């Protein structure tokens, strides 16, 4: 009789694993949403991989979050937000979500140690720098592998370097490297660049820069210092060895949305598509923060989006209850 639940904060026949709202991700967006849903008396569960799991936990010091002059540790700031949500009754658990069924009724969230159900879900798992290094990347860090052209460009005077990536950083730093290096090869996994038009124009006009498209670097080789990379064409699988003295890596952020593939509309980069009400393609599922925001990626914007998602979710739930309670009368 799950569907006839009316009113918020309902706890009657619900098992311990049944909530009004499940928020996946406890960063700024998730914690802010939890503050709002918990205050609205919705039984709220926040599932988070761990305090320092998110990008925020790794960001050293924060000084641009309004109202908190800082510099404050990212983990401290998020701990404060969570405590605030908990004070209104939200439950936080540490677990990794391994799967979801967003179209079932109620919606199902499978975590490592338990499954949970809820009427509505907010996706707030954020984004991360890519996980896992290219084989050889750690070994040759500072021996030809670099993430900072302005720092290390000088050491590649008169040499050959490759740049991995296709965003603004890859192009900016690639262009900078042409001051020192004889040739700069930009290796990008797609056939077009993510970088802004002006940067693209400058890169294409630079005769020291050449591009290898639809290709990823699968291994970095060297003998003491880097001397080559192995590449693979993403469509044909064709492998190639490219001689190089340096590898500059600028593979940007990826939204943590892989566990949602096939369940919900996302763009080509994996960002969840939301409308201005933070609604996703699935009714009752909202998304907030960096999982749906490739543009701003600020704590302040994530907090705002989390708050907006919570308000819209609350409206969605109450409208749905109105329809449900009205329906039997019509039928009768």
């Amino acid at each position: 009789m799950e569907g006839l639940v009316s009113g918020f904060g309902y706890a009657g026949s619900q098992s311990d694993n049944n909530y009004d709202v499940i928020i996946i991700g406890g960063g700024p967006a998730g914690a802010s949403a939890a503050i709002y849903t918990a205050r609205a008396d919705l039984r709220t569960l926040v599932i988070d991989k761990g305090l320092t799991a998110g990008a925020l936990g790794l960001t050293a010091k924060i000084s641009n979050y309004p109202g908190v002059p800082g510099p404050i540790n990212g983990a401290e700031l998020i701990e404060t937000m969570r405590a605030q949500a908990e004070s209104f009754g939200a439950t936080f658990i540490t677990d990794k979500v391994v799967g979801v069924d967003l179209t079932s009724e109620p919606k199902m969230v499978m975590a490592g140690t338990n499954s949970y159900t809820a009427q509505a879900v907010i996706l707030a798992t954020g984004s991360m720098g890519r996980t896992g290094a290219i084989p050889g990347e750690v070994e040759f860090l500072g021996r030809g592998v670099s993430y900072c052209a302005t720092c290390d460009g000088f050491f590649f005077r008169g040499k050959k370097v490759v740049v991995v990536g296709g965003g603004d950083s890859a192009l900016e730093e690639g262009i900078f490297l042409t001051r020192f290096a004889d040739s700069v090869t930009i290796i990008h996994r797609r056939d077009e660049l993510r970088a802004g038009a002006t940067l693209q124009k400058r890169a294409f006009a630079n005769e020291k820069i050449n591009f290898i498209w639809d290709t990823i670097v699968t291994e970095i080789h060297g003998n003491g210092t880097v001397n080559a990379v192995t590449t693979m064409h993403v469509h044909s699988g064709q492998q190639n060895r490219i001689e190089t003295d340096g590898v500059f890596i600028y593979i940007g952020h990826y939204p943590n949305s892989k566990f949602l593939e096939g369940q919900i509309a996302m763009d080509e980069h994996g960002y969840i598509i939301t409308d201005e009400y933070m609604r996703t393609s699935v009714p009752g599922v909202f998304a907030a923060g960096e999982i749906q925001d490739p543009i701003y990626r600020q704590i302040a914007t994530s907090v705002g989006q989390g708050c907006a998602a919570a308000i819209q979710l609350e409206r969605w739930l109450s409208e749905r209850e109105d329809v449900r309670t009205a329906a039997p009368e019509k039928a009768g």
Partner: protein
Amino acid sequence: MSLLRDEDRRQIRKEFESLTEPVKLIVFTQEHECQYCAETRQIAEEVATLSDRIELEVYDLLADEEKAAAYGIDKLPALIVMRGGDEPKDYGIRFFGIPSGYEFGTLIEDIRMVSSGDSGLSEATRRQVAELQTPVHFQVFVTPTCPYCPRAVLLAHQLAMESELIRGDMVEAIEFPHLSMKYQVQGVPRTVINETVHLEGAMPEAMVMARLQEAVQAAA
């Protein structure tokens, strides 16, 4: 021609209002000034004018041979930040090469730290450092355009301040190509501890301390 912008000068002067104890800057240069010797001297001179708590001494590597030996100066330009006043104390804080770009900030931070008399290190690090029995030499290779480098240099300087056994050198990699070659510097910051242990990047205090222990044990 002043090297500091008026705006920076004003800002630093204001920050230096909080300096409590006197700080001494010592610059080593030579008669025919080396590449960046003149600029390093000028930076020190300009910074010294921004607070009456800052003293400045300039020596010539050759003419003041004894001073150079006493301070362990073997390359130019060199800059020392130490306690000034009636009880001067050299902590082992060194800049080899010009403290410009991002490293200018390190110089300002060093001056504030030395004046405060507090390294600002964690209790755990202080305890570990207090147990040192043998000298430890940090050489932090940097380039002026490296935003991650000051953290590594500052930590070496904090450790130098905390322990009489530790010397912390910033080494500007471009100005000392033979050292960059010797220590195989291809990326910065690169920290070399006692010639044996190499660290890439600006690592957290606890991790640097673990590597320092490694270096000490390797020598034992």
